[in-house]
Each structure stands twice: as C-alpha cells, then as structure tokens.
C-alpha cells in the first residue's frame, strides 16, 4: 500500500514538474471552453439583411417589422430586384435576403397561406442555417398570432412550416459547445495524458526497472490512473462551473447523476488511455495514436460539431463506438432537458459496455515482460 501511495505521489511530481502536461491539464479546458463558448459561437446577432418587397401590403410590412425588431437581424438595404439581391450577396453586404412575392398579403388574407422566400449566403453554412431558422420561426409566429384562427375543418393560416426548435429556440452556442468541450477535454486529459505517461516510462527505460520489481501490473495501472482521475474530475467541475455561470448553461437535472455519469465517462477514457499505452512505445507514438483515435473521431463523429443524422450509415455505425457521443447526449439530457436515469439508461448502458470492453482489452494487452 505504501508502495502504491508513493507511486501515486511520484505521478503527481511528474505532472507538476512538466510544463507541457500542466498546460494541457489546466490551460486547455479554459481555453477551449472560452473559445467555443464565446469566440466560435454560431449564434448570430444583428446579421445584415436585405428586403425585397414586391407586395408592399400590410402583412409584408408587419412581418418585416417583426424580423427587424428582433436582435438577430439588422436592415441593410431595401432592394428593388433580384439582380440587386445577387449583387449584394456577391459583395458580402448581406447574410440574408427576405423576398415577399407580389400578392403576399392578399393571398394570406384570402387563401390563408402564402410564401416568403428566404435567401441566405450558404458559403457560411452554419450562419445560413441559423438565420433561416430564426427568420422562419418569426414568420411562422406572425402567421399564428396575427391572423384569425381558421374555420374548423380547414387548414390554418400558415406562411411556412418548419419544426419548432426544441429546448434551444435561440440556438444558444453554449448548449452544444459546453457538453462537447467537456466530453473532449475529459477524454484528452484522461486518455491522452495517461497513455503518454505510460509510454514515457517505456521510452526512458524506467519501465524495464519497474517490471523487474515486485510491483504488479494492477497497482502500476491504478497508480497511473488515480492522479489523472482526480485531476480530470476537478477539470470537469471547472468546465461545468464555467458553463453554468459563465456561459449560461441551464442545470435542470440532478447534479449527483451528472457527476456519476462524469465519473463513468472518465473511467472509459482512462481505460482507453491504458489500452493506447499498451500499443505504443514512445511518447510521440502515444500522442499520435491518441490524436488519431481520440481527438479526431471525437470531434468529427460524436455529434459535437457535425450532426450525426446527416452522416452516411457507415459513419453513423462508427460513431456508436465513440464514448463522447453518449456522454454528450447524457450531459445535454441532464443539463438542458432535465432528464433522469429513466430516460438516459441506454446511453449509460452503452458507456458501461464500452468501459467493460476497453478494460478487458487493456488488461489483455498488458505485458509483464518486454516482448
């Protein structure tokens, strides 16, 4: 036991004496959360909008007023023709053009439905998507609120039908980025740093000496894991606090459950780290392996940055092996939707299965000799 405690203390010495490790441990979470939370936001404010009004009727005017009185849009031009719309986009003056066709008000009054055309600059796809959804929901609201209710049995008045944006109607960036960042950081700190420290023992030759000692594999692995387990958990708390108090994340579910799930996820990440370390003999190898097998798949395939639904089926299948995918769902479920274990058990079960599988793999590929 004393040997084990001294081993853990030794690991802490390694961590606190290595500036690179410290930077990854404590610098990266703050930088990433801040970056993703504030700078890389896909939230749009005061986007430049052009209006092309062929209708000039009362409804067109009122929809415009609603659009422009929101925070999202600012009027840049009134235009007279499609050609001017195209020119404005080419010059980059505007992000969105709203086109009211002739007869818009008339059709809305008499037919109960009409169309508005939203033209967005899709070269910036994220902004375009956001703008279109903001505008759509405003237009839709107008139709619902301002027009007389439909006669029974007939279709209600509508301008355009889109799915309502649940839970994050204002598309707050923090809602996607805080869970994603947390999943990423915990994975990197736990798995990458653990695998690198074990690889470092191999690289410097200390592994040879450790092997030729009475110390067994299990205490060695645990001794490597414990410090990073503690530090990762501390990191998780920092990111959570930043998310809730700094970025306005809600916390609607149980904090206890959230912390338990975080522990589980950290465990999965650590098992991954041990597994990687058994496969690489140099720190650089471990780093490369980590980036290829952890960082990229997590960023790409966890639903963090790119929606899983729009991926081809093979990629979706691969994403089922990405632990971050489940953890992100769990975080969002607990924090934003206020869900409990009853709703989140499939994700939790998936994480448990991954943990068991990885642990088995890691221990099976651990060696008590060199080759």
């Amino acid at each position: 036991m004393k040997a084990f405690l001294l081993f853990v203390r030794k690991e802490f010495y390694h961590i606190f004496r290595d500036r690179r490790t410290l930077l990854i441990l404590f610098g990266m979470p703050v930088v990433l959360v801040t970056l993703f939370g504030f700078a890389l936001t896909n939230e749009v404010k005061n986007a430049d909008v052009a209006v092309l009004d062929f209708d000039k009727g009362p409804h067109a005017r009122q929809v415009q007023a609603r659009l422009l009185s929101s925070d999202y849009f600012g009027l840049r031009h009134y235009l007279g023709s499609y050609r001017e719309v195209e020119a404005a986009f080419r010059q980059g003056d505007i992000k969105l053009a709203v086109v009211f066709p002739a007869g818009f008000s008339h059709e809305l009054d008499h037919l109960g439905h009409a169309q508005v055309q939203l033209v967005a600059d899709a070269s910036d796809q994220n902004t375009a998507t956001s703008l279109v959804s903001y505008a759509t929901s405003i237009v839709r609201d107008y139709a619902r609120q301002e027009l007389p209710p439909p006669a029974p049995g007939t279709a209600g008045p509508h301008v355009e039908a889109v799915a309502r944006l649940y839970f994050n109607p204002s598309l707050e960036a923090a809602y996607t980025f805080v869970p994603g960042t947390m999943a990423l950081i915990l994975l990197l700190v736990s798995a990458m740093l653990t695998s690198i420290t074990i690889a470092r023992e191999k690289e410097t030759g200390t592994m040879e000496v450790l092997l030729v000692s009475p110390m067994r594999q299990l205490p060695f692995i645990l001794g490597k894991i414990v410090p990073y387990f503690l530090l990762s958990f501390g990191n998780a708390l920092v990111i959570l606090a930043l998310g809730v108090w700094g970025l306005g994340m809600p916390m609607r579910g149980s904090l206890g459950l959230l912390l338990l799930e975080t522990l589980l996820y950290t465990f999965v990440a650590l098992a991954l780290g041990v597994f990687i370390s058994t496969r690489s003999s140099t720190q650089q190898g471990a780093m490369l392996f980590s980036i290829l097998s952890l960082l990229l798949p997590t960023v790409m395939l966890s639903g963090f940055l790119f929606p899983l639904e729009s991926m081809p089926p093979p990629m979706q299948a691969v994403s089922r092996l990405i632990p971050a995918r489940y953890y992100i769902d769990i975080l969002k479920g607990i924090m934003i939707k206020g869900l409990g274990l009853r709703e989140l058990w499939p994700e939790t079960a998936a994480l448990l299965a991954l943990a068991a599988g990885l642990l088995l793999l890691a221990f099976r590929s651990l060696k008590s000799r060199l080759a």
Partner: protein
Amino acid sequence: MPAAMFAIDLQHLSKSYGPVQAVQDVSLRVPPGELFGLIGPDGAGKTTLFRIMATLLLPDAGTAAVAGHDTRGGMRAIREVVGYMPGRFSLYPDLTVAENLDFFAALFRTTVRANYELIRDIYEPLAPFRDRRAGALSGGMKQKLALCCALIHKPEVLLLDEPTTGVDAVSRQEFWQVLGQLKARGITIMVSTPYMDEAARCERVALLQEGQVLRVDTPAALQAAYPVPLYAVRATGSLYPLLQSLRAYPATRTVYAFGEEAHLSLLPAATAAATTGTAEADLLGYLARAGHAQVQLRGLTPTIEDTFMELLGARPAATAPTAR
C-alpha cells in the same frame, strides 16, 4: 554441482528478433558470490542476455535460472531478489536524487534507512546533491545513483548492463571498487562492459561475439591463452598506412589497431626465427623500405583484448572492441 547451486544458470539459450539472431546457444554458470563479466562489442548479445536473466524476455530456446528460480515459471520470485540496472539511464530525470531512491526503496517494500549500510559508500558522494534532479547529474553520478537504486532492496543477484559506459575514468575506477565491496558481501554480480581493461577486474569473464560465447575463463587464463609472441609496432604519421604495410607483410599472422599502436603476431616459421632476432630485423627492414620512419617494435604481454581478437580470428580493426 546441482543446478540450484548456481546463482545464475543459463543453458543453451537462443533468442532472435526476426531474422537477427541476438543470442545463440549460450550456456553459462555463475556460482553465488562471483563477480562475472560479459565482455563483447556492441551487438554481441549482452543486453539480450541481461533481459532474459531479468525475466524481461523469454528465450526462444534453452532455459535460464536466476537465484534458483526459472525465468519462465519463477518470474515473480526472481523479481523480488534481483537488482537490475539496464544499459541506459533508467531513473526518473524529473525526480530528485532522494526521491528516486525513496521511490525504488518503496517499490521493493523497504526503506532507504533499512538498507543504508549497503549503499553508504556509493551514496555518500551523492548525498550533497540529494535535492538535485537526477537528470541534472553528471554521467558518473547518474550511474552511482542507479546502482544505489538497484541495490536498495539487498538483492541476491545484481545484473548490471554496461554500468560504466559513458562514464569518466575516475568514476569508472570508483564504480569497480564498489563492485568489489559488494562481492565481498556475498552478492553475485553479473556485469557487462565493452571495455577490455575492466574485464581484468572480474573473477571470470565470458567473451561474447555475435550472440555466441567464445570462451569463459579467468582473466589471467585468458591472457595466458594467447598462443604466440606478440609485438606492438608504431611509427611516425598515422596508423592506417602502417597497418596497410603490415597486412601486406608476408610473415604477418594477425595485425590490428590497438589504441595508437598496431598489435602484430607473426607466422610460426617467422616466430621460430624470432628467437634468433632475424625476424624482427627483417620486419624493420621491410617497414623502412615501405617508407615508415622511426619504427618502434617491442615485445608485449598479451591482454584480454588480444586474446579476444585472437578468438575472433583478428577481424578488421573497425569491428574491434574499444580499448581504453
């Protein structure tokens, strides 16, 4: 003697890495308390043998027993009683001298205080630097610290893989003195070195080449084993042209570079003539004609290295082990 009587008992060991045969049919027996040397150039298979003895590698064929335990089945038992110092520096450079020592003591479930007696002589010169990071120590001090760490659990068998490589001459002297003291305490020591002069410090040595044992004997016996008279030749200018001329000399039996000189032995016919002095006169005359100035020729007592070179069949100088 029954096998259990040996501290180290290697029987017909072979080990290859892919197509490279690192160790080939090596058999060695070391009784308890002996200071045994493995001598050979880089690539002779010394490190592989150490790793097999330290239970880090399994041999492809043959058996190895250390401290009475087989390395295959008795891995755990061997790891309790063996002190192993790998060929390269294998301590934590970011921990201090004292932290390293404490850590390795704890690893073997003991304390520095309990076994301080054993390491006192080596550790005392290090003590003033106890709070210095191990990475910032000089080469000699690093090796002393590594030896302390390998000794801290009072091992029965000490496995030292090239402990003096890259260490200055004074530290090497001190290091071998310490090994002598440890031997006096009854610890079996297996040590490897590429330096022939260190071989003389061992009780017995095994000469290794390309994974095979060429010969096992005491240093004195190895020196005495050199079969013919040996000469050292030197001349002004660089050694290489002199070696070229000597190689072309018809009566030359073997010739190779040895430090600043060429070591030369002559064919039996010439050797017989040497008693009369004519062989030496012939050679001097030949070298003078070949354009070498101030040629000096003297008879030599062969060293272990000469015997080693003899056993190798006097291969080209480039592959010769280093002499210092």
